[in-house]
């Protein structure tokens, strides 16, 4: 390798190292802002600022889904292992919405501590299997109160 080429290679290498360091620093500084959602236990513990819109992520608590016949309003609770937050939503729910499903809701806490959502999204996992296999797996496996994919970084 000639001297010029070695020098150029060194420059490119330094460019990559510098960029990598800059990106790592920048992203770790923005870490909090890149958080997509907060968990119910963080909200109950008061770690989430009030009077501001944010996302809550957790599982739809079993037996908590209530509908009122006359409109689309639905009430349910979003829970993790330690806490649950009541949510009210008026709109169309995604196909995957059901008790035990991981969801992310966007909205604001009201004064009574009820989360008023104006968007509810379903967060599914990265497991794909046929219904038969899923059924076979389900027997003999107890459901997790907060799967790893739904856990918010703190």
């Amino acid at each position, binding site marked *: 390798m000639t001297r010029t080429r070695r020098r150029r290679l060194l*420059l490119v290498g330094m460019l990559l190292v510098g960029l990598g360091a800059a990106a790592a620093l920048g992203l770790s500084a923005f870490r909090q802002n890149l*958080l997509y959602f907060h968990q119910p236990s963080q909200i109950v513990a008061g770690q989430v600022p009030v009077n501001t819109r944010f996302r809550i992520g957790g599982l739809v608590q079993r037996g908590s889904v209530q509908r009122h016949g006359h409109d689309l309003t639905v009430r349910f609770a979003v829970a993790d292992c330690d806490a649950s937050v009541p949510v009210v939503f008026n709109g169309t729910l995604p196909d995957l919405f059901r008790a035990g499903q991981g969801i992310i809701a966007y909205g604001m806490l009201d004064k009574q501590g009820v989360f008023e959502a104006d968007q509810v*999204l379903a967060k599914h996992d*990265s497991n794909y*299997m046929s219904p038969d296999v899923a059924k076979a797996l389900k027997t003999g496996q107890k459901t997790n109160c907060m799967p790893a994919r739904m*856990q918010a970084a703190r």
Partner: protein
Amino acid sequence: MSHSSAMRWLHRFGSLPYFYRVSRLWARCLALPGLAMAGYGVYAGLAIVPPDYQQGDVFRIIYIHVPSAWLSLFGYTAMAVAGVVILVWRLKIAEIFIIAAAPIGASFTFLTLVTGSIWGEPTWGTWWVWDARLTSELILLFLYLGVIALHQAIESPRIAARACALLSVVGVINIPIIHYSVVWWNTLHQGSTIRPLGGSTMETDMIIPLLIGALGFTLIFGWLTLWRMRAQLIWRERRSRWVTRMIHHER
């Protein structure tokens, strides 16, 4: 391979008339198995594999979404490697590669975003969210378009190629961010299904057509890139003696 024979191979590969001569056969060797495997992957995904326990038939779009996403990352990484070769060794064949691969990579990135959006609407309940995975993939599309635009904007092909090389090398920092975005941050997008180091979270009957399809799409990527490289090469070398001689020969 010893150092000198590796260099000899590199020089031979870098020789444009040699590349032009052999690339036609290489492209054809990629095209047939590529089309067959991609065709099998898509067909099996649509018609053979069982529906997903949770998403039903909607998940079948994965057989286009995942190969496209893989190629969007693979294409840009390959361009960045070519970028280093351009910046350090000034190899013409690498210059031609970057320009040839960029529109194909951009197309696969676009396809990834579109199929992801179509998939997200019924399953998540939204066409688009600004989570880390989706946003970084959108930035990748802009990087591809930036390389294409930069090449269009600079008249001298060699200077244009150097600028594109620099952008490719700088932009490659986005590739690990896209890949690990689902690990580092809470995203709406789920984590990786295919894990080369074991523990893939997909039933065997479902994952085999997906892997075959992804390999097929990769071969198609290679085929199209080689074909575009040939066109780019003949245009850039149109005034050289070997191209003139070849054209006279063909008449």
